[in-house]
């Protein structure tokens, strides 16, 4: 039974070495890939923002529906890979509703090639144009949804600073980002408190009164809190002239990536025009 071990160890040695070296190599490859994926996610948010903006502009200028469709499919595949398909689909709902509205209006009113459907006529030119708009909206919304899942508020504010957005806008934006969640949570708590005291239970006027009183309460709280925030700012040495640290420069690899992607997008838009 143990002949292979006592008489011919070669196969055993080969299998053992092969297995363990492959095991180490496999683990190494997996780690390297994870590292590469991690690096991919850490692409500079400024590049992500600018490339997304350029891609959306390119899509809105496209005249053939198949390019936006291909882009949509690619981004949908990316959403599946990132395990955000449900969130992605939910966020696409409103843009696609508006796209359908435009498709219907164009299909039933625009063009000269008329198809009689019995009650109302359908125009082929309108259907084609409406479908083009639909695919553009689908692709643009897909890009935006994927962008927002990979960029945080702080990264966005940093990108705004780099894009030379006025300092006051940045200041207001950073305050807003910090307090939107606070006021949203406070609003929810007040609503819960009202509901537990039979609020939001009557007719339209009563429910509207409840909703508006939450809004009024939040506004008065915002005023009160702004005084406290100002005192806190002063206690930390803030003054109107004090500004934040320098903007970090764009990395060379990110700049090259941005340049390559931008060239590709412009090339795609030009190709679409000449097709």
């Amino acid at each position, binding site marked *: 039974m143990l002949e292979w071990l006592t008489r011919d160890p070669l196969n055993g040695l080969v299998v053992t070495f092969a297995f363990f070296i492959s095991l180490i190599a496999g683990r190494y490859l997996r780690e390297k890939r994870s590292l590469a994926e991690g690096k991919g996610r850490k692409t500079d948010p400024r590049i992500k923002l600018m490339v997304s903006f350029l891609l959306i502009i390119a899509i*809105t*200028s496209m005249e053939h529906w198949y390019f936006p469709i291909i882009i949509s499919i690619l981004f949908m595949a990316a959403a599946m890979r990132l395990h955000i398909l449900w969130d992605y689909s939910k966020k696409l709902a409103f843009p696609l509703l508006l796209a359908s509205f435009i498709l219907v209006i164009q299909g039933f009113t625009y063009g000269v090639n008329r198809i009689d459907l019995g009650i109302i006529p359908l125009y082929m030119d309108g259907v084609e144009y409406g479908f083009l708009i639909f695919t553009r909206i689908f692709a*643009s919304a897909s890009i*935006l949804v994927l962008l927002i899942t990979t960029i945080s508020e702080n990264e966005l504010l940093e990108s705004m600073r780099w894009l030379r957005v006025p300092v*006051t806008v940045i200041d*207001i934006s950073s305050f807003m980002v910090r307090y939107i969640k606070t006021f949203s949570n406070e609003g929810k708590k007040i609503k819960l408190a009202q509901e537990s005291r039979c609020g939001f239970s009557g007719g339209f006027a009563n429910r509207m009164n409840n909703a*508006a009183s939450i809004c009024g309460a939040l*506004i008065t709280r915002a*005023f009160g809190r702004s005084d406290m925030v100002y005192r806190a700012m002063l206690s930390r040495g803030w003054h109107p002239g004090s500004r934040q640290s320098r903007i970090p420069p764009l990395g060379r690899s990110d700049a090259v990536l941005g340049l390559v992607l931008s060239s590709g997008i412009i090339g795609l838009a030009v190709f679409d025009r000449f097709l």
Partner: protein
Amino acid sequence: MKSSKLDLGGSNLHISDGILEPQWILFWYAVSAVFIALGLRAINKRIASDPSYLPRISLIGAVVFVISVWHIPVPVTGSSSHPVGTPLAAIIAGPFETVVISAIALFFQAFVAHGGLTTVGANTFSMGIAGAFGGYLIYRLLKNISPLWFSAGMAGLAGSILTYLVTALQLALSLNPENVTYYWKLYSLGFIPTQLPLAFAEFAFTAYAVRYISETKQELISSSRGMDRFTKTALVLMVVIASVIAAGAYTGYLSGYEMAGVDGTVEAGAAPFADTDSIGARLMARFGEPMGFALVGITGGLVTGYFWTGLWRKN
């Protein structure tokens, strides 16, 4: 954004990416940029004299953002939707300041998949400029002749309706430039089932909210001055003269003149030797008569208004 946990259901009138043609994207960005610059100027002036204004306007901006993604009950449809929120913001913070707040809010809303990156300019114009200025104007006109809640409610109603009319116009201009008027009507009609009930909801919401604030923190909305005698007289005269012209035109229309205008009478009687190739005539031919008359009205009004006080002092 990935860390946002806001409740963002329902629908409202944000134009998504991919709808507007690139030239219209640029146009609406340019128009909104002018108003944003004016708003920033006003905010910076306030911050220079009162630094505590920075956190105040920012926190109001945060509340406006939260309100604009809040669900309010909508009559008739029985569902719920988001208010525009900008007329209320204009009443509390001022219309120019509201433009800045709404531009920032719309930029962040794009990052929660409401609206879009390329349409921030267009959405700022419809909600932050048309909605806020329209609503604020109505509020100021009605404030001294009606209860506060009613003038605020009418501001909400007008702001909401103006927002959806301007959105419909933006869609028509970009998608169907060859027949703008027809498609403007069509898109406006298409929005009516959802937006008209929402406008009434906005009326009630703004009215109740302003009444609540006036009862709890009156200084927030009572700081603005009412109209002076000059403004009131000018507005009354404007309405009276416009009514006389409209009534006259309608009477002429009923008599079969089909609103042919008085151009022939003026050319033959009042200015028989006028140069038909003058700059004014060429401008009229290029931009259309209404634009020419509007320019004349704006220039005349501005000059007269500017020197009015000085004239009276001399006398």
